[in-house]
Each structure stands twice: as structure tokens, then as C-alpha cells.
């Protein structure tokens, strides 16, 4: 299924047309071909936050690397901010945070930011001022003078986002930006993204964290096995009728009344029933007719998660036992 086009007045920050990437591995006599991306068409509009979702190995990082020209496409084209990524003027306006960024351990956080700032053309007091601003933003001022070798994973991620923002980017591309962050760091990072979005920065987030997608992104794309399955505005997804899993909690003594619920989507377990939203009403009315004491009903997944699972055809997930349920 081709993604649906979304009409918007904003110009394209990233325009991807028929993008394919094939990896060839193995030796001459045993070549192995992997199709990492298969003819992806995608528009990411300026001043919007776009979230790219997909399972591990779906091709998300490959897509980002192709946008940044770290990989060459087998077929198709990418336009970034109206030009080619090869142009210095285009790169000048881009910030990139790779998944688990790695830095030379011999430098301090401040030195790294100074270096990356100088690559963006800052110098002298302007550079120092910009580095101070970024250190304040990522809350690393007190650790700025320490060598990177002594930093925690979360601190490295903060320096990573700092170097991505040092050039005041118009387009920020992040690959799993929440990796390694503690809950406080996660919230701070999310707030940074929301502030950047308000300031007009285009965000392209490659993420697994659905909460981040719901709170930050305007649109999401779902990549599965190298193909873009869906592209939709988040508002549309939240209003969509994709069924969500629910947990119906009943009294422990009511177990016999749960047996024989005639729906395939309802799975009886100790203390309740896990049921798809498709048959929630019917299951509840059945339990009421059996005079079962229902203590409560709560959703087991978000609308975005359900939409994601539906898009990649993982219906089996809906009936899979989940953590947190008995």
C-alpha cells in the first residue's frame, strides 16, 4: 500500500522519490542481496515534526544515512531543503544526531562543541557564546570541562544533541534520540524538541518510543521491511478507529464466569480478560449478562501503537500476552 499524500502549504524540507538501497554481501560465489529500502516516496514538510517508526531492521537508519549521503542510493533521489545534500549551504542548515553518538574520548565536552561549531563557521566570541548557549540548553555547563571518557551514556547523548544544534539547524535529523536517557533526560529532550518545533525547526525523528511520537510529531511514517506502509498526520491517527487492546478487570472469585467467551479476540487470563477494542462492547455486555463483577476497563496500548501494529500487519500482537497483565 502506498502512503497517502497529505496536502500542506509548507514547502518540502526533505523530498524522497523512489529511494531504494540494496546491500550486497558475501563472496563471488555466494552473493547475498538485501533490499534495505524498496522505492520509498516521502515528503517531509518544513516547520513540522515527522516521526519515522518501524521495527528493528525495517530500514529507518538506512533511510537517514541516504538522506545525509553517508550511503549512496541504488535508485531514486533525495532533495534536502530544496537542494542537494552535497551542497555546503544545505549541510550548513542541517543538524544530525546518530544513534548512540561516539566521540573522540580525548576531548572535553566544550572542546567538542567548539570544534563542531567551528565547522559550522562560528569563530571567536560568537563561537564561545553559541557553545555557552548550547551547554545551558543541554544542561551540561558543569561537566563541560571534563573529558568525554568520563561521561555517562546520557551525557554523551546530550553532547550529541548539542553538536546537532550548534549550527542553529533549520532541519534536525535524529536517529533514536532518546537512547540512553534517564526519565529526566528523556523529558528534557522532549521539551527541547517541542521548543525547537515552536521555533520553526523541522524535525525528522527516527524512534521506537511511541510516547515521543504522540507528544512531539505532527506526522508519522511507518516503515516495514524497506517499504513505507503508511504516512499520516498524528491527529488523524488519534481519531482513527484502529482497535486498541483492553484489559477487563474482574473480581478474583468470578473466574468461572469468564470461561467460554465466544470471541477469538478475547483471551481469558487470571483475574480478567484481554480483549480487542473490536469486541469490547460485546464482551462487556456478555459479562454483565453473566452478572460478573467488572472492577474496571483500561487500554493496554495507545492508539499510535495500535495503528503501528495494524500498519505492519502484526495483528498477532493484539492477542499476545503482554507485560503487566496477569
Amino acid at each position, binding site marked *: 500500500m502506498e502512503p497517502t499524500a497529505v496536502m500542506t502549504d509548507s514547502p518540502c524540507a526533505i523530498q524522497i522519490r523512489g529511494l531504494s538501497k540494496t546491500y550486497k554481501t558475501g563472496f563471488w560465489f555466494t552473493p547475498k542481496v538485501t533490499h534495505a529500502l524498496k522505492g520509498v516516496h516521502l515528503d517531509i514538510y518544513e516547520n513540522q515534526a515527522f516521526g519515522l517508526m518501524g521495527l528493528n531492521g525495517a530500514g529507518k537508519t538506512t533511510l537517514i544515512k541516504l538522506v545525509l549521503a553517508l550511503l549512496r542510493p541504488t535508485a531514486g533521489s533525495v532533495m534536502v531543503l530544496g537542494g542537494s545534500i552535497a551542497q555546503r549551504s544545505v*549541510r550548513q542548515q542541517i543538524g544530525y544526531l*546518530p544513534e548512540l553518538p561516539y566521540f573522540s574520548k580525548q*576531548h572535553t565536552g566544550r572542546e567538542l562543541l567548539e570544534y563542531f561549531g567551528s565547522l559550522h563557521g562560528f569563530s571567536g566570541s560568537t563561537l564561545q557564546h553559541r557553545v555557552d548557549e548550547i551547554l545551558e540548553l543541554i544542561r551540561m555547563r558543569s561537566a563541560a570541562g571534563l573529558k568525554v571518557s568520563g561521561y555517562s551514556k546520557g551525557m554523551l547523548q546530550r553532547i550529541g544533541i548539542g553538536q546537532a544544534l550548534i549550527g542553529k539547524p533549520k532541519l534536525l535529523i535524529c536517529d533514536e534520540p532518546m537512547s540512553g536517557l534517564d526519565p529526566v533526560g528523556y523529558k528534557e529532550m522532549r521539551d527541547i524538541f517541542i521548543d525547537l518545533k515552536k521555533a520553526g525547526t523541522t524535525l525528522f525523528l527516527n524512534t521506537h518510543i511511541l510516547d515521543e511520537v504522540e507528544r512531539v510529531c505532527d506526522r508519522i511514517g511507518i516503515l516495514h521491511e524497506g517499504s513505507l506502509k503508511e504516512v499520516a498526520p498524528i491527529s488523524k491517527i488519534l481519531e482513527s478507529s484502529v482497535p486498541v487492546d483492553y484489559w477487563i478487570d474482574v473480581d478474583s472469585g468470578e473466574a468461572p464466569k469468564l470461561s467460554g467467551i465466544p470471541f477469538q479476540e478475547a483471551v481469558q487470563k487470571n483475574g480478567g480478560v484481554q480483549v480487542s477494542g473490536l469486541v469490547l462492547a460485546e464482551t462487556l455486555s456478555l459479562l454483565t449478562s453473566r452478572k460478573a463483577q467488572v472492577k474496571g476497563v483500561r487500554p493496554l496500548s495507545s492508539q499510535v501503537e495500535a495503528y503501528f501494529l495494524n500498519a505492519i500487519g502484526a495483528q498477532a500482537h493484539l492477542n499476545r500476552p503482554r507485560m503487566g497483565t496477569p
Partner: protein
Amino acid sequence: MRRILAVTTFTFRELLRSRLLFVWLISVIVLCGLDFLLSILSFGSILQIFMDLGLAGMEISGLLVLLLGLAVTYTTEMDQKAIFLHLAKPLTRGEYLLGRILGFFLVNCLVVLGMGLVVVGLVIFLGGGTVPALFYDCVVFILLEMFVLTTLGLTYQMIATSMVGVVLYTFFTVFLGHCIGEVQWLLNQEMSHWIKVLLRMVYYILPNLEAFNLKDRLYDPNLVLGWAQWQDILLYAFSYSFVVFLIGWINLEKREFR
């Protein structure tokens, strides 16, 4: 230019703090120890021993620092993928490569010149002699050799797929580069046409590191280094390095980072 300078400074600082200069320090200690030992045993002139060993020490310690630096930075830049962050910035791959080469070369200059100062100190203060002008020419020749090898090493770093590969390629280039005289001698012998073609390729592709080997002629009374000789060696060092740099640049442009 500012961006190249930024990469140079970054590389220089990275290498200096990687404790590579311990190699230099160990070389200096070994050199002083050997000088002391040989001067006691009185094998020839003490001054000659100081200078011969010093020049050899400069070349060896420069080479060791280069090889170790290549190994350390390959792990960081290529294996750990730190290079992604540089290449995603408004910096061309050519600027990145040139900055790295200059950063490495600066560290090598520090090592070679530092060792040179130690040797001059030994000759003047311990040996009570004077340093001939040709000694300084030898140091410049070693620096030129290091420049060629640095360009080659960094180019290998852009081509090779493992750290061991980079170190081995560089090491064998040094070894074969010093055997160019033997290759030239073989070319004048009677042998199969195809072997001669192969040898001729080796002769033209590999750097002629013997061209930078002035230290063996330090006491040659007939040796006079005129402007023409300087012109030749400078032209050779920079033109060879330029071609190697272009090859490295083209490879880096083509390289994919998975």
C-alpha cells in the same frame, strides 16, 4: 581553510592526548641509553654515534607514532563511527582528509624535532662537539619522508576495512619504499618480461623512500646540497603526496558508511 584548520587542531589534540608521545619518550630514553653504552665501548667517534643513532631514532619514533596513531584513530573514526558526525557537517570529505593529514603531520614534526633537539643537546653538551649543517638537512629530509608516509597512511585509512589492514599496508609500504634501490637493480638484470613489468609497476607506484635517506651520506665529503637537489626532493615529496591525497579523497567520496 578555517574548517581544515579546525580538523587539524582536533586531530593534533586527539593524538597528543592519546599518550602516543610515550612512544617518543621511550625512544629518547633508549637512544640516550644506547649512546651512553656505545660511547663507553668506544665504537668509533662518540659524536658520530650520537648523530647516527639520533637520526635513526627520529625516523623510527616518527614511524611508530604514525602507525599507532593510525590504529587508534581508525578504531574511533571508522569502527566506532565517529566519522559520521564530521561528514554530516558542512565539511567536504577532501577538507576532512587534508585536516587529518596535517594534524598527524604536526604530531610527527613534534616527535622528530623533539628528538632532534635531544640529539643536538647530546652532541653539544655531552660530546663537546658541533653539529654539521648537513645534520639539519637530514632532519628536514626525515620530515619530508614522514609527510609522504602520513599521506599514505591516512589514505590507507580511507580505503582499508580494518585497523590491522591500515597498519600492515603502511608498514609494508615503508619496508618496500626503502627497497626501491634493489628494485632498480633487479630491473637492470636479465629476467622475464612480465616480472619486469611487475617490478616497474612497483617502482613507479611505491614511494622512493631512499630518496629521503640522507643520513647514510652524513659524512660524505663530496655531498653538496644545492638548490636543484632541494627543488627535486621537495617536488617529489609534495607531488607524490598530492597524488596519494587525491586517491584518498576519491576513495573517501565513494566510500559508504553503513
